[in-house]
């Protein structure tokens, strides 16, 4: 039963990810006084891409063709670890939050290698920038998450979220810092403004797009889907760690329904915030990203220290 729910939940996670991307696009369009595409547009794009004949460069090696499958699988595994609508997941026990960060690293490793595979300047540029940003973002993310895991004294995400739920509404300074750190990291890691612009086609500012420039057809579909999944994953992490109320604690059908509604509401709200931020803020220069990310790192560290100094039991 547990495993069935876990598998269903991961499937739901994967299926809902394009919807979140569609909703985000919708909000942005409305904010910018444009006519919005349908909410289901990302699904149609994915379908179209997966039915097209992929064109691959003559320079490509087996790694280029395998990488999209690996990237998508690793991101999907990361998603299966995160509680979406119900807390008690058996998958969270087999891979804790450090492993989840490891899955992200795994996906990124192959994405950047795929960028280098063709041997164009764009691919190398994208890979180099992606590695720079992520190697600064990953420790910041771990710091934010360690604050949570030390409070709950478990690295199991289900357990940690259940702990926050049990404690009720307590204002912890460490959580405030960790929340801000995680938000900053999420923006950087999912390639949103002000770090990267997902809609850019201006070569010199591209990061994520530069790496996947050579992909087409089903490979592009997989990578696009994986990045939508990653966006949703960060959203769920922020929503369920810091505002876990509403998530189902039992497998009763009613609770599950409420859990689904709650997470949909929370994600919709987060997407609106993100859309507003993306509309108001301009993209940063590449070499200011380090200041941005070291700020996130610092916030995470302060969060951790304030947990240790102010909140721990002795």
């Amino acid at each position, binding site marked *: 039963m547990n495993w069935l729910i876990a598998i269903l939940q991961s499937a739901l996670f994967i299926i809902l990810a394009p919807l979140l991307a569609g909703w985000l696009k919708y909000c942005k369009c409305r904010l910018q006084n444009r006519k919005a595409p349908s909410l289901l547009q990302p699904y149609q794009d994915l379908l179209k891409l997966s039915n097209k*004949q992929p064109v691959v460069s003559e320079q490509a090696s087996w790694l280029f063709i395998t990488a999209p*499958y690996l990237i998508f699988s690793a991101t999907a595994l990361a998603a299966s670890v995160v509680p979406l609508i119900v807390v008690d997941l058996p998958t969270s026990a087999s*891979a*804790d939050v450090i492993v989840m960060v*490891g899955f992200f690293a795994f996906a990124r490793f192959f994405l950047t290698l795929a960028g280098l595979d063709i041997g164009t300047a764009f691919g190398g540029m994208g890979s180099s*920038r992606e590695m720079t940003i992520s190697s600064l973002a990953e420790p910041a993310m771990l710091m934010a998450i360690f604050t949570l895991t030390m409070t709950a004294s478990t690295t*199991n995400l289900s357990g940690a979220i259940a702990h926050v739920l049990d404690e009720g509404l307590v204002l912890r300074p460490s959580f405030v810092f960790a929340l801000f750190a995680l938000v900053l990291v999420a923006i950087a890691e999912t390639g949103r403004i002000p770090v990267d612009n997902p809609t850019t086609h201006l070569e010199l500012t591209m990061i994520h797009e530069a790496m996947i420039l050579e992909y087409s*057809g089903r490979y592009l579909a997989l990578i696009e889907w994986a990045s939508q999944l990653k966006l949703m994953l960060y959203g769920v992490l922020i929503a369920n760690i810091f505002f876990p109320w509403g998530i189902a604690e039992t497998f009763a059908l009613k609770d599950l329904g409420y859990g689904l509604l709650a997470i949909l509401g929370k994600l919709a709200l987060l997407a609106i915030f993100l859309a507003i931020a993306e509309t108001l803020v301009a993209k940063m220069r590449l070499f200011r990203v380090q200041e941005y990310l070291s700020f996130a790192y610092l916030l*995470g560290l302060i969060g951790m220290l304030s947990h240790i100094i102010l909140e*721990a039991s002795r």
Partner: protein
Amino acid sequence: MILFSAYLAVLLSFASGLLALTVNQRHLLQTLCNYSFSTLFKNQSQHKAWIDKNLELQRFPAFLRQGVFILLGLSGLFAVIAGLTVLISKQVITDQLPLGLPWLPWHIRFDCLSGFFFLIIGIGVFAVSLYGPGYVRTYKEHQHPFASLGLFTGLFVAGMLLVLLSDDAFMFMIAWELMSVASYFLVAFQHENSANRRAAFLYLLMAEVGALAIILAFGVLASFSDGFTFNALRESKLSVTWSSIAFVLALLGFGMKAGIAPIHVWLPEAHPVAPSHISALMSGVMLKVAVYGLIRFCFDLLSEVQWQWGVVLLILGSLSALAGILYAMMQPNLKRLLAYSSVENIGIIFMVLGLTMIFMATGHPQLGVLGLLAALFHAFNHALFKNLLFLGAGILQHQTHELNIDMMGGLIKKMPQTSLLFLVGCMSISSLPLFNGFVSEWLAFQTALQVDVLDNGVLRSLIPVAAAALALTAALAAACFVKVFGLIFLGQPRSHHSEKAHEVQNKFMLAGPALLAGLCFFIGIFPSTIIHLINNTSEQLLGQTLPNVNALSWLWLAPVSAQQASYSPPLVLIAALIAAGICYSYFRRNPLTTVRTAPTWDCGFGGLTPRMQYTSSSFTMPFRRIFAKVWIVDEQISKETKGAMNQEVASVHYQLQVHDHSWPHIYTPIAQGVNDLARQVGRIQTGNIRTYLGYSFVTLILLLWLIS
């Protein structure tokens, strides 16, 4: 029986060294063989044919090389057997050998800790012995004699094994020096190059300074006890001050060998210039012997550890880890890069050992055990993947005659098997899930996250900072090895050599790395196999085991308790296979969507050349800018202009050199100081015989006065 196989391992490595010496004694060997066979066997025609065939002038060198490496491989095999049996049976075996001075026999002790490091050395030596014959074939006999390479390799391995067996300070130091000096000759093997000679001298110098520090550390202990056997040293009662002095000396000595920053400078010089299979042994295995020495000294000989020592180790380890990986990232030379990455990994091991000390000294032995487990496991993993990567670098050098990663590229198509093995190494060292490097890093994080149990405020805030440094290190390591794999194997060939490269013909050269890569993956999936063995070690060394041994099944890894943290690599692997299978079959369902190949998109300008690709220095340029203070960066751009008014740029030269801060700030002042001191001493050397007679007279009077 266990001890017998351990001795056999040592003797076989000696034998392989001695056999290598006979490379110039073909005739002697021939007559010897003929004589012995004719006396032993009656029907000698068959044997004689065999001997004659193998001792022919043409075949003899290859035959001997194989013989030497077979003996070395057997030595590795017996070391593995000895290590495994002692780890499983949890025995402590002691023995005395009537060697050395008559009243000072060599004391031997073989316990779980030695056994674990025997296992590490055995695996490394075995892999190298598979790889070696093919690799050394290219050396010209008159320029690089095989006799010296084989002899010193054998002595080097024997020295390392003897260090682990020794149970008194004398034998320890003799074995230690055997290891250091033999490896000096191996570093100086390609001595026609002056840079190599300089590197070897630097290595010898630092190894000897380190050995002096170790002798002094033993001396401090010995002055509080009767005798130099480890048993006597264990009994010594030291005040905190004296034991701290002993600890600092031991840290200096063993840290210098292990390559902890800032006393690491010999390592990136010496490791790249040795032959690749020796670099693999030095980086993968010898550094572990230094880690063994530190663990033996601190946790076994010094009875009480202090938490302050743990803080020192923690800080030094974090600094080395960060500095190591940042310097590694900037190296265009593959072996130099790998050597700096060893500094990083040793830093991680020291960091976790520091955590162990802190937890042990503050009365949380079970968490101390967790730390020791993470440290030993990381040492084991590092031995596997660093050996693998160095052997891979050797194959690359063998096939492309290059070590500069800016000159490679596109090798994944030319050398598919090597590239796969190298990829496994890169993924393990970048600590990606499903590989062994991830498990030890996971354990290290779990140890650091237990900081809540401590009372001391300084420690409570220091350890999270160290965890943050560890997280940054891991992320930077991933970036560094993406660069390595991406530039070497992917893209288009950047030089003529790598365009013409092909897969290595000798299958044994691939077998060694393949064995290591297989182990990296196997241990990444079933880490409990090794963790059980380490648990036995910590039971013997610290008298404690993991709190939750029952949770350590083959499927689950839950070092503290299942509620707190658990990781199940087999389940993750199954899930990954299912996920990849589903998306593969889903997207393969439509037969119309077969892949079409086309030229790379070139923005419509045409003519993409390999020179347009990113290089090592351009890939790391953002890092160079962000962490600018870490290195001494010497960047020079010179433009040549031509045409009217010098408006047109004819050519641009870009030169980048990245230097280590420790040279101008630590080593050059020391060298200067030594020189100045020598000049001061030189003043009394007037060269005048009367003055010298005066000195002798004064000394004599002084001594007479002293003894009267």
